[in-house]
């Protein structure tokens, strides 16, 4: 940073108001990323203020970290530098819910739950079951590409985001995409910022596709041995049934395996699918439970929250869907707690944070690559990150990614070092 912290703080306060800037030690400590404490926290009230703050910080060459709900700050490598945390918490408005168009435009700092409450008034919802929805913000969900269990049926974050506004390192606010569900005017810039972990710009506004709330929803949890659960899953996948989520879950501690399948839709469609799945599970000797309502919501929320569990190591292994069971079998000796999205091929593995666990990473990477997939450490206490790149080996397109970063943030001020290969 070119300026003294105090001077930078004054400049920000002069432009945004004293309330928007804080150097309070306790607050700073609460906004540390992987043990790196920022020097200032800045919470602008408008997108324009946020842009102004970025400009001031950029002029001072201060390293910035955008901060939404702070639920996924342990994603990525430890920051190389961190001067200012820029909070989106005041950008929390729904700008427009066009229910007939099935879209909503929101400011990036709105929490997922707050948005869902607004959408629910028109019997709609955003079909992203992200972790910790009472805290996680839309901007954070988009930047970190946080998906949930129903992703395979409702679409991934990248499919649901159709428009954005983003503050670039220059302090300019740009628009990407729009509010129509089909749009090929210019490059699809939303894809660039989705999942970029705030390393190319700070998202201030997002337009998303939303969906009608399903009339009915039930989840069948069948429990038994690994072999039973796996066989039931295979049978299910051979049918024309259309689950909204399809997970294999091992709750750990030698408890039995669960195959959790949710169905959304009309009453009769849900009922038929529940019955057919039950009929499949019974002869295999699996025990069954059908859950709805709050119990169902809680069950899936726990699965959705797993990627951001604190003080644990969370691996994300992604393989083609047909390789999920093989992949689980290769790590069975470690008996980790895990859940696997059978339709997406994503396996979340949760283990205690210790050296043995971390040593598993190279093995997971090699295995995943053999299957034409990839493995990353999604979450881990900072100590374990010092010697490992949590993103795994750099992808073949890494040189191109660096060029993109260079184009958008040549001084490397947005979240430096946290993204893949040192970006």
């Amino acid at each position: 940073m070119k300026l003294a912290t105090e001077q930078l703080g004054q400049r920000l306060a002069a432009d945004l108001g004293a309330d928007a800037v804080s150097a309070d030690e306790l607050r700073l400590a609460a906004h540390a990323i992987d043990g790196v404490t920022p020097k200032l926290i800045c919470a602008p009230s408008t997108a324009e203020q946020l842009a102004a703050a970025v400009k001031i910080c950029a002029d001072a060459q201060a390293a910035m970290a955008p901060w939404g709900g702070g639920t996924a700050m342990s994603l990525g490598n430890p920051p190389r530098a961190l001067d200012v945390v820029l909070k989106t918490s005041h950008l929390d408005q729904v700008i427009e819910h066009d229910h007939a168009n099935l879209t909503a435009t929101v400011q990036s700092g709105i929490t997922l739950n707050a948005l869902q409450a607004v959408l629910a008034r028109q019997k709609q919802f955003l079909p992203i079951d992200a972790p910790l929805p009472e805290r996680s913000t839309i901007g954070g969900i988009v930047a970190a590409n946080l998906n949930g269990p129903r992703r395979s049926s409702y679409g991934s974050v990248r499919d649901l985001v159709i428009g954005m506004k983003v503050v670039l390192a220059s302090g300019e606010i740009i628009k990407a995409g729009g509010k129509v569900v089909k749009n090929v005017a210019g490059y699809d810039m939303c894809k660039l910022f989705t999942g970029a972990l705030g390393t190319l710009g700070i998202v201030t506004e997002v337009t998303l596709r939303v969906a009608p709330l399903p009339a009915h929803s039930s989840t069948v949890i069948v429990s038994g041995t690994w072999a039973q659960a796996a066989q039931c899953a295979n049978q299910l996948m051979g049918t024309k049934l259309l689950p909204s989520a399809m997970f294999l879950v091992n709750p750990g501690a030698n408890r039995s395996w669960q195959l959790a399948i949710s169905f959304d839709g009309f009453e009769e469609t849900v009922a038929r699918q529940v019955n057919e799945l039950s009929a499949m599970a019974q002869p295999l000797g699996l025990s069954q439970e059908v859950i709805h309502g709050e119990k169902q919501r809680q069950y899936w929320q726990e699965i959705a929250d797993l990627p951001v569990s604190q003080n644990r190591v969370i691996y994300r292994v992604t393989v083609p869907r047909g390789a999920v069971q093989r992949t689980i079998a290769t790590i069975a000796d470690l008996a980790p707690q895990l859940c696997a999205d059978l339709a997406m091929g994503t396996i979340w593995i949760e283990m205690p944070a210790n050296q043995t666990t971390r040593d598993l990473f190279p093995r997971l990477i090699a295995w995943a690559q053999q299957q034409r997939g990839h493995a990353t450490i999604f979450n881990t206490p900072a100590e374990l990150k010092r010697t490992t790149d949590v993103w795994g080996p750099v992808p073949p397109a890494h040189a191109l990614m660096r060029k993109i970063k260079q184009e958008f943030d040549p001084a490397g001020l947005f979240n430096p070092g946290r993204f893949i290969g040192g970006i």
Partner: protein
Amino acid sequence: MDKRELITELRRIVGTPYVLIEKEDVIVYEQDGSIFQVMPEIVVVPANVEEVSAVVRAARSASVPIVPRGSGTGLAGGAVPAEGGIILSLTRFDRILKIDLENHLAIVEPGVINLDVTKAVAKDGFFYAPDPSSQAACSIGGNVANNSGGPHTLAYGVTTNHVLGIEVVLDDGEVVWLGGEVADTPGYDLCGVFVGSEGTMGIVTKIAVKLMQTRESVRTLLAIFDDMDFATNTVVEITSEGIIPAALEIMDHMSIEAVERGAPVGFPRDAAAVLIVEVEGLSEQTERSIMLASEICRRNGAREVKVAKNDAERQLLWKGRKGAFGAMGTLAPNYYVQDGVVPRSQLPEMMRRVAAISKEFNLTIANVFHAGDGNLHPNILFDMRNPGELERVIEAGAATLRACVELGGSITGEHGVGMEKKAYIGWLFNDADLAAMTRVRHAFDPDNRFNPAKLFPTPASCGEVRLEPGKIPAGLWK
């Protein structure tokens, strides 16, 4: 390297028969499905990625542009060599390399025809979802470049939602995979950024696409309306009631007339509009959805609602819909199709504006479009031989796009910007927005080697551009 040396080098790379330079050979590449014509200088038809890479390096040494070309069905002039140089045709990249049903994916070369992917897996109960009306002719590479849609992208999404990864040749000849065969490849989503870049970032040489399982049941209905407003209101109500059909397509009176004159399927010639509603899923679900959709149609003034009783009836409806563009020739010597989008909630208002534009410019407009997505296709009918008419047609087309933008929409839903709409892209994006896109372009292609003078609002191109509408042989996309 001068042009002669370049030709020698290209012949060395791909073999003499695959380098076309004579006028009678290159003339078939002077146009795509749009109205733009530029006579190409050199067309090369490489056989494999090594050859593509070498051609790109040669073009770089010679400082000439490269324009990738698939089947040439694009409607925005994307495959036309605006600044001359080399047209790189991918027609020899026509193999499906891998079908992996266990993993719901296929790896195909870019020259593979869209429909052939579905044909290859249909017997196993799978399909490739994006289904442009041109699917019997257009290539997957062209689909990737244009992020193409189709009638069934309402429920399933457009090309970008079905592409997991691509192999591309970059401006220095390097071959690299963007994305992969699974979701969430770590790093920036460069595959997502590339899809829809209209050939301006590199040459796609392999594509990993998702395959979907066919649904248990498909139900289709045809609703007949005496007023376009009734039809568009129906569409708004269907989506806002929470029914997401697989397809929601409208054809207006003129389009019906075109189809019935060309290859008749029995659409009522006196109707103002017909609406095709198709739902897919489990049988209980489609049963209930089609019932609800029928009710909504009636409630909104449908004169008649006919549910297809069997697959033959269903196919007939789709034959009418998919043949509509090709049938425009039965109404007028020439037609010019536009591709605007509005939020679905604005559809009724937008169709009123199209009618007003038709009056204002004194031109007949036939509408056949993806109503469920708010994606319009006004076909402006005219006769090229009438002096000044083409210019008026282009102005009328622009007026429809202007109206879309005013209603919160976009200037293109699936056909792309190409040469056609680069002057309009500033209606949607300001200089800073466009500069951000240019940065991406620059990271991929610093010399603007790939498909220059497209997509961005650059000044008129230096090649000699002629406007020549409606040369695609009818019947190509039945």
